[in-house]
């Protein structure tokens, strides 16, 4: 197996031009997949390990956007004061992702590019309205995360292109952020259902906007505008949440697999909304 270690962006872009080159970030998804492939030995892997520009967290646009380097590890982000203070739902998602060793190796970019319907950071990043920054030999472009994710394991990433950063607009501190993952155990568990919710309320507690995204209940991250609409204008009460939950449960079309049945996923898709009443 050939592994290249570019040290800066120009070297990275060049390395990605090698025939059959694949990006290796933390390797926690890629190496598992390669293990099952007999021809894995022939692969050329391009490690992001030495490219400093892909790491780190910075405030942009006078304090309204957080720019996160794509190769930042989950553990680095989880320890970052701005992530914890301003993006608690992302921090909650990172805290339940894998286990300490996985969080030490795995990166945000890897989680996004894997594009798993159970990827833990995807629902929060979607409701937060994250934008991706992509770079290749022909320059850089930016794309909303929602347009980047095309299906299970499928993204808009072009050959020779790397995800360099994730730009996350920071919600005002008064907005409510919530993430919950239901797995079959408390660590090293793939999500059976997950929910990210960003709820803003106006005067007298009426909800002005609600963004909801569910993981692991559809081929991609699942959104339910009808449930969001049902919350707007109401207070964040159990009865409002119950009606949104009923809508979500009736609309979602999950599958059964070894982790859970479709019925279970359907019930929990709605139920998780109720937790917002207890926050």
């Amino acid at each position, binding site marked *: 197996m050939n592994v290249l270690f570019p040290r800066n962006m120009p070297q990275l872009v060049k390395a990605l031009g090698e025939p059959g080159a694949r990006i290796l970030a933390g390797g926690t998804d890629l190496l598992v997949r390669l293990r099952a492939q*007999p021809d894995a030995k022939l692969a050329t892997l391009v490690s992001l390990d030495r490219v400093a520009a892909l790491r780190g967290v910075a405030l942009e646009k006078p304090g309204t956007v957080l720019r996160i380097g794509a190769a930042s590890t989950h553990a680095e982000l989880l320890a970052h004061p701005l992530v914890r203070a301003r993006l608690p739902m992302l921090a909650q998602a990172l805290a339940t992702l894998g*286990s300490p060793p996985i969080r030490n190796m795995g990166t945000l970019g890897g989680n996004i590019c894997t594009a798993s319907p159970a990827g833990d950071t995807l629902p929060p990043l979607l409701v937060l309205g994250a934008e991706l920054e992509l770079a290749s030999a022909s320059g850089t472009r930016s794309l909303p995360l929602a347009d980047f994710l095309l299906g299970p394991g499928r993204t808009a990433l072009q050959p020779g292109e790397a995800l360099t950063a994730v730009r996350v607009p920071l919600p005002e501190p008064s907005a409510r952020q919530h993430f919950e993952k*239901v797995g*079959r*155990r*408390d*660590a*090293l*568990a*793939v999500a*059976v*259902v997950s929910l990210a919710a960003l709820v803003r309320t106006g005067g007298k507690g009426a909800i002005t906007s609600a963004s909801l995204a569910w993981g692991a209940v559809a081929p991609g991250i699942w959104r339910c505008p009808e449930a969001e609409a049902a919350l707007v204008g109401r207070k964040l009460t159990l009865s409002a949440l119950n009606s949104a939950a009923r809508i979500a449960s009736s609309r979602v079309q999950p599958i059964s697999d*070894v*982790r*859970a*049945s479709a019925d*279970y996923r359907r*019930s*929990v898709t709605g*139920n*998780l909304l*109720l*937790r917002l*009443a*207890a926050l």
Partner: protein
Amino acid sequence: MSPKSRVSAAQRPCPQPSVRADALSKATGAERYALDLAPADCLFAGAFRPGAPSGSSPGIAHGRVRGLDTAAALAEPGVLRVLTAADVPGTNLQGIVHKDQPVLCGEVIRHAGDPVALVLAVSAEALRRGLAALRADIEPLPGVFDPAAALKKGAPLVHAQGHAAPKGGNLLLRAVIEKGDARKALRDAPVVVRGEFSTPAQEHAFLETQCGFAQVLPDGVLDMTVSTQAPFRDRFEIGHALGLDPFRIRVRAPYLGGGFGGKDGATVQCLLALAALKAEGRPVRMAWDREESILAGYKRHAVRLRCELGADSDGTLLAYSCRALYDTGAYAHLGGEVMELGMEHAAGPYRVPHTFVEGRCVYTNNPVAGAFRGFGVAQMSPAFEGLMDALAARLGMDPQALRRKNALRTGDTNSSGVTLTSSAHLAECLDALEAHPLWAGREAWREAAPPFIRRGVGVAAVFNGMGYGRGLPDMAIAKLELTGEGDFLVYSAVADMGQGNAAAFATLAAQELNQQPGAVRLLQPDTERCHPSGSSSAGRTTYTFGNALLKACAAMRDKLLSRAALFLLADDIAALELVPGAVRHKATDRMLPLAVLGRALERDDRVCVAEFLMPVAQDPPDTGRGFVIGFPHLFFAYAAHLARIEVDELTGRVRVCDYVCATDGGRVLDRSCFDQQAQGGAAQGIGFALTEDFSTRQGLILTGDLSTCLMPTALDLPDILSLAVEGDEPTGPRGLKGVGEVGLNGPAPALASALEDATGVRLRDFPLAPERVLAALKQRQGRARRKA
């Protein structure tokens, strides 16, 4: 907590070891496990299991082998041989009691993990390519995957032909335990509760997968080093399968990286031996990867039960009946014996005058079931404790009081008709829980549940038999040597799979010989250097070998005192004593260092050997019918477990918040080893009861790796508090009993009881998966709504 011990200072003049004998070498990575000892020039052997699901096939659990194309595999560079059933000398049948499992299948595969070929290659990579290049033509046959369906007329036969076709179709064994007249007693009982229960298969998931290496030495001896729980018996199993003289097979068993029953019986042994026979004297190694370990390894038997419990209106138990169906999978392995032990425990650790227990152990095309910690009993405890809770509710009695009232005590006759001359302190275990703040404070704790969370507290009483039972002598032979350097070497002859028996042997010997812990060294089992002492299983390991070792130590002490008499000019042996590193003349304080004695004595004279045979029930009752061996048992460890749980109403997930086990394992020799057994058993039982959910469909494993077969992690387990209820088993080495297994039997019933306390619903099918819990909560809400 400070260790409580009733062993007096006089009995324990030397300090306790601060850590168990194997702790440091294991913690530092210095300990050598089987494969660590393999020579560098080993060949690699691997089994071809064509029923396994692969990219090109969904998998086949039952099929006829129509052909095997080995040409492409043999053409791979580095592939030396491809062996098939035709290459197997001997009977080609392995098995501990029933010999029905081919080493390599020639005509039929009976489960998806059955091997049809063995590849021998010069490297791991060549082996991988060779295995990938093999092609088998397997014609799928109709299979049976449900033990009840397997018993129906016209069901496909798992062993239709060849070797071991049983007379009873797919029935491996039917057996009955009958005491008194349970049917009549149940008819007449003022109160009767009943229920159906089921528990799933379980994966052992030891850290060290099945592995070993082997070599035919120039003198023809087959020398093997294997991760095995039964090195002595392995020789006979290999010898029978491959037509070899068992006494020309040497098996060494270094420390195992876990066993739990899954390495009791042939795993790699016969395949490795076969490979070595065809390797022209070169050493060969074999190690299963995790997927192969799950695919081909043994499982806990999935069991279904139908039970009835009858009692008087004051809670005195009158009768118990139980019908049990054990799914043994494709081969017998220890199916009959596992079922036997389960049946003996069917009615719980209680006095029950009338019992009827019927067990049927059935072949299917599911993965092979075998021994697993809690050997058949872990499947019974959810039922007997479930019915005890139901009875308490019916009678409006405190469930703890009901248990205590009926708990077996020394002198009682148990449900198999055995009079317990052995120690029994279940009532004290229950007392210990009742006195615990987690029990006393349960109401307040339950009331303080946060939104969407329900809390519940549950208790279960369990037990587990010790030893092989009647008909199979439970014997160990200990050998002890004073070395030329003046320290002691214990020839441990029962494998240590991590449970700490080797460390216990070192402690026992050091205490008995009055030496510092460091003065006793251990040799791990080796059939050439140690004496046959049976398997590491059945809660017998420390008890049986420990007793033999104490006898050997006593003989050694007598010998050393008398040999020293000459040097110390003592004409009265009683004037001498063993002290650390020396023999001492008490009156004059003159010393003879053991190092001098070690040099002075011939090696033959520095060795003591002694054996011990576990006592069995005298005048055994004629209550059991159909058992081959192993009925009944006389000694039992007891335990009571308490679980406090939270149930999430929104997700059905159960979180174990607090867990306490109170265990009667006789006297405690080493408190940390004792606690580790209780805690490890409870943790494994929690996995069994809650998260693991080993599952198959049409015989194909759905949970084939550790991302789907979900062992609990550190985050899923609370700190498990272990309380020792010290009794004294008079026949045990320093009063101890085996405690390795009983801990596994508690969690399933304790958690189900806590869940009922939290939700009002009793689940009788395990695991208590979120799915089932949520459905039960919904049903109950629906019922409540209809009532309102």
